[in-house]
């Protein structure tokens, strides 16, 4: 004998929400979190996970190789086996550039293209909140991607140091502030440029190509001017790829490296700072202007 069906369908109706509610700050934090998730491919298909994590892996390779060599040669008198320096590791990898060109369009363009922004701005968020949350998320990711390999490098070198970890720490204490400051300047720079350019279009492919195009073309233009006879070293600031490296040198060395032609110019360092501020300022202004959604 089969038992009589006992299942019952309940209309659970609607339950009002009387729990905690955060304000604007909580909403911005939620937007940062969802942007980080999207950028790293979390809750997305493996294809969307693959590229960002691969790029992070590529960025970390020199640090791992350097630590490995330091470990292998720790008992030899060779002291100069070093693939990368802390200064040289800031902004050395084109993986960061590729990461920005990949991720900045992905976290902005679909929101505008699918008109998801109309739902976002129906919440207690302003256009400025939105733009700054995106900047914080991408800038934070760039910082993490640039900083973590440096941590690996530092901790690794410290642990395999012939003279002991404490000696290494004492001898290299300056990089403990130089690296995060230089990496923060670099991250802000790339995040601002990437997001500003991505905010101008709804198509990811166009945005990615624009980011790579603007940075690479500026570098080429500076190279052409460099080859021209009588061109001032000041034209070097047109190379947008080099500008954050000038700032890096100012943080690590207190001056521009002699390898940069801009160092031949009196006031070259000041010009580099001005160029950095102008690029970041124009980028942020563009980004905020594109998200002036809420007039109120």
């Amino acid at each position, binding site marked *: 004998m089969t038992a009589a069906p006992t299942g019952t369908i309940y209309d659970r109706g609607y339950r009002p929400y009387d*729990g905690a509610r955060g304000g604007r700050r909580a909403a911005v934090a939620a937007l940062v979190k969802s942007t980080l998730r999207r950028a790293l491919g979390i809750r*997305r298909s493996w294809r969307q996970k693959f590229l960002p994590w691969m790029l992070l892996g590529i960025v970390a390779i020199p640090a791992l190789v350097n630590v490995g060599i330091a470990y292998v040669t720790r008992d030899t008198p060779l002291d100069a086996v070093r693939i990368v320096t802390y200064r040289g590791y800031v902004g050395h990898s084109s993986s960061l550039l590729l990461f920005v060109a990949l991720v900045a369009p992905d976290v902005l363009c679909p929101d505008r293209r*699918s008109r998801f922004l109309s739902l976002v701005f129906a*919440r207690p968020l302003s256009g400025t909140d939105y733009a700054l949350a995106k900047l914080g998320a991408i800038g934070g990711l760039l910082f993490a991607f640039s900083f973590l390999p440096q941590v690996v490098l530092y901790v690794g070198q410290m642990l395999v140091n012939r003279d002991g970890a404490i000696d290494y720490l004492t001898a290299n204490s300056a990089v403990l502030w130089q690296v995060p400051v230089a990496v923060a300047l670099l991250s802000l720079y790339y995040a601002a440029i990437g997001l500003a350019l991505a905010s101008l279009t709804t198509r990811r492919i166009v945005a990615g190509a624009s980011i790579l195009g603007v940075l690479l073309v500026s570098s080429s233009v500076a190279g052409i001017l460099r080859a021209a006879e009588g061109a001032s070293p000041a034209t070097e600031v047109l190379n947008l790829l080099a500008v954050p490296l000038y700032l890096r040198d100012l943080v690590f060395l207190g001056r521009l490296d002699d390898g940069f032609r801009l160092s031949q110019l009196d006031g070259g360092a000041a010009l580099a700072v001005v160029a950095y501020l102008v690029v970041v300022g124009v980028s942020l202004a563009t980004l905020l202007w594109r998200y002036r959604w809420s*007039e109120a």
Partner: protein
Amino acid sequence: MAGPLLRAAGLTKRFGGVTALDGLTIDVPAGRIGLVGANGAGKTTFFRLLLGLTRPTEGSVEVAGVDVGADPAGARGRLGYMPEHDCLPTDQSATDVVATLGELAGLPASAARQRASEVLDLVGLDEARFRPIEGYSTGMRQRTKLAQALVADPELLLLDEPTAGLDPLGREAMLDLVARLGGFGISVLLATHLLDDVQQVCDHVVMLDAGRLVVSGTTDELLERTGVVVVEVDDRGDGLVAGLARRGLTATMAADGSVEVAAAADADLDVIRDVVAELGLPLHRLSTRVGTLDDVFLRRAAS
């Protein structure tokens, strides 16, 4: 809440030389409110003003006692908004989208996910909620849009053409859902150009035409105030029309042979009765014509 849910005072919005909303002054109580008008009547502009996404050129608007101009974010915190157009990221699941939007409204992450699950249940999205939205039908997308508007438990839902693009069954289901929301104590402002939808689910109607208020009142009031009495006599309707005209009442012959009389006051009914008696006509029917919102809109907009 003691005061009106919505209060607009002299609300005007101009875009260059175009006046989208012209001196709108209304007090609307909580409930299910229909905002009706043709395309371009000013419905979407009114929504944008309520959400604080654009500033009025003149006047002010309040939502649940919050002055939108002074505290737009506070007003948005009391509202849920379902746009007419497509607005969902199609590469994500309904669960993720609704939960994320719950968090953006200020709900803690765990509460947002739980609420997302509850409201998706409520709107009837079952297992599909875990699939990417790109595979959804129009009806499922509309339900997802409604769910995201509900997730933060708003005091007032702004629904912009929620039945657009739905087949008759989907439309009925959506209207049924909207009607149920009223039962849960959630007020609804339903913007549409489909007066049937409003007549079916709304208890208050605000009619706009070219940015101006045509009429605002309860649905029952508006439907009762057709001001037309239908009189059916034998085939001597023409004589009745002439007789009523002599007594100062405007009457016309309808296509079905009945006589429609513009009767504004109860005394007019006495006049109709007297004229019928004087002419010795057999009175088959004397009734107030039950109108539709279409009639009300057309009559009021014309006047």
